[in-house]
């Protein structure tokens, strides 16, 4: 399998300092928030790679850097062998840009209310001066809406239908990669099922590659071929969903799995997770998870764990073997 997307040592820092005058008067230093820290992964062509994590884990920031909405502070993103941040060849940039599309979480905020659906859908083509005749109608049918909907405005549609319009728009430029940032989080379960099924069908039909960003582990296990778990901007574990469910190797992944409500977990009593996500401006030394980790030892407090292969997974934990053993004893 060849990689369509290669992400290497990706880092993004945001400047969250107070305004200059306040800094001078109150003698405050500059403050930097590291939203993404040294993340590396590859997405094979035609597969779905999922990034899962809680708020503040940096999953959306990675998605934005992939499509070029944000510039990395360090590291590189290569899509089809082209690094959009450094590439100077206009023709190659143009080609790769057309290969990437994005679907956002809120279908109410991502459609222009003054535009007709037809114009919304063909905009990715119109922006490049391509032919747009009949494209919107064909795509609307493809995503399960009717041809007549092309002349309507977004407010005439429900949330699920709007998300279908967003998907149709994403398909218009015939992309190879679609970055989906929480595409179903704003939808009801029955509508979510429709949209997820549609996304799977389209993937098979067009050979699409997805980067699927979500906070919902169950949705992610359903959709993904490979799952990357993020915690405080770091990739802590990467594994196939089956492996992740059966043998989670990172204590944080185990905690997430335990905390997720189970449909058959009637009256389940679990020890709720301890503590909260630390302040990302002053993250803990060493492994960022150590203050909440039941297995933390001295080494975890001082040395940041590198991502390493543990069985079929890649895990950033000094004590992954012990964590797996403990998990298997428990279940």
């Amino acid at each position, binding site marked *: 399998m060849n990689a369509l997307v290669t992400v290497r040592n990706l880092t993004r820092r945001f400047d969250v300092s107070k305004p200059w005058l306040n800094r001078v008067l109150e003698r405050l230093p500059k403050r930097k928030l590291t939203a993404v820290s040294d993340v590396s992964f590859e997405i094979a062509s035609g597969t779905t790679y999922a990034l899962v994590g*809680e*708020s503040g884990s940096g999953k959306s920031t990675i998605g934005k850097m992939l499509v070029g909405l944000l510039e990395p502070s360090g590291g590189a993103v290569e899509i089809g062998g082209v690094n959009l941040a450094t590439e100077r060849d206009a023709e190659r940039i143009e080609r790769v840009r057309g290969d990437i599309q994005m679907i956002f979480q809120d279908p109410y905020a991502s459609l222009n209310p003054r535009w007709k659906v037809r114009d919304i859908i063909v905009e990715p083509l119109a922006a490049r001066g391509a032919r747009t005749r009949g494209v919107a109608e064909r795509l609307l049918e493809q995503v399960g809406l009717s041809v007549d909907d092309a002349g309507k405005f977004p407010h005439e549609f*429900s*949330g*699920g239908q709007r998300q279908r319009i967003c998907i149709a728009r994403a398909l218009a430029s015939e992309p190879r990669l679609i970055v989906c940032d929480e595409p179903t989080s704003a939808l*009801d*379960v*029955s*509508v*979510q*099922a*429709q949209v*997820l*099924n549609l996304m*799977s069908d389209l993937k098979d039909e067009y050979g699409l590659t997805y980067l699927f960003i979500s*906070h919902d*582990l*169950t*949705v992610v*296990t*359903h959709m993904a071929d490979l799952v990357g778990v993020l915690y405080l901007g770091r990739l802590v574990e990467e594994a196939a*969903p*089956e492996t992740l*469910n059966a043998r989670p190797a990172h204590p944080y992944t185990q*905690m*997430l*799995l*335990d*905390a*997720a*409500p*189970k*449909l*058959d*977990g*009637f*009256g*389940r009593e*679990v020890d*709720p*997770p301890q503590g*909260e*996500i630390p302040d990302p401006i002053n993250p803990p030394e060493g492994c960022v998870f150590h203050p909440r980790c039941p297995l933390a030892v001295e080494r975890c407090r001082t040395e940041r764990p590198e991502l390493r292969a543990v069985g079929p997974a890649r895990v950033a934990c000094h004590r992954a073997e012990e964590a797996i053993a403990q998990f298997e004893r428990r279940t």
Partner: protein
Amino acid sequence: MSDTPVLSVRDLTVEIPTRGAVLRPVDAMSYDIAAGEILGVVGESGAGKSMTGNAVIGLLDPPAHIAGGEVLLNGRRIDDLSLRQIRRVRGAEIGMVFQDPLTSLNPLIPIGEQLVETMITHLDISQAEARKRAVAALDEVGIPGASERIDSYPHEFSGGMRQRVVIALALCAEPSLVIADEPTTALDVSVQAQIIALLRRLCRERGTAVMLITHDMGVIAETADRVAVMYAGRLAELGPVREVLSRPRHPYTEGLMGSTPAASAGRPRLHQIPGAMPRLGHLPPGCPFHPRCPRAQADCTRDPGPTLAACDGRAACWHPVNVTDAEVSR
């Protein structure tokens, strides 16, 4: 535990008069919640879950109003109380936890003061006693260093900690019923697990009845004792959580369960319920679910539609699923 349920709702109907027609976001709902019991109310957006909760505590925004039925709290009718009387019930006898903790706390007042104010209003205690109890309440909901943080403002807390404060606030006057409307929807999973565990522990210890309104089937499964499934303003199914979720009788419940992705999946496709929930102004005749139902037959389109009472008491459906022959003959 006495025989009178803490909350008893009988044929509760909420109406919203509009220019064209009268909408019924809640249509003839009946259910009870016993002391120490958690009733989960589940449904998709627009099913009327929040409207039921708001009707019980008299928080309907006009022109929505209770058009029929009654609400009994510990055997006393509360749906016909005046605004002043219902304000005494709210907070004292019914505690509320809403989705967004920021909007349920006053951002300009320290949390301790908000707790003290609530307790002094509803309980006959002194300022000093109330403050002592406020520290204890914050301690109980798991806020570290409660005595130092009691004078902090809401914005100084994280989302999960804020929701703990709201729970402390809802429980501080020792109400017999707590209505929790999507209490964890705005929170991360790990925080959600903490909040759910907290709510469950406190209610079990105090014997508080809880109405837990959520769209999350997983939360319902782990938390509720009984579950009420709502569809288009009506009760579709009501029963013990284990039975309703593992052997649903209403085709809608079955469809909902099928469309929820499970962690132990491997299933390539999710079950799809065709179509979407009808708008309130355009309800089909008979059973509101029949246009989307795989088991719909001719009698499903006839009025009056199925109700719990007219059917087996569990699912409002003429042709329920997962019913054994023995149950049919009964």
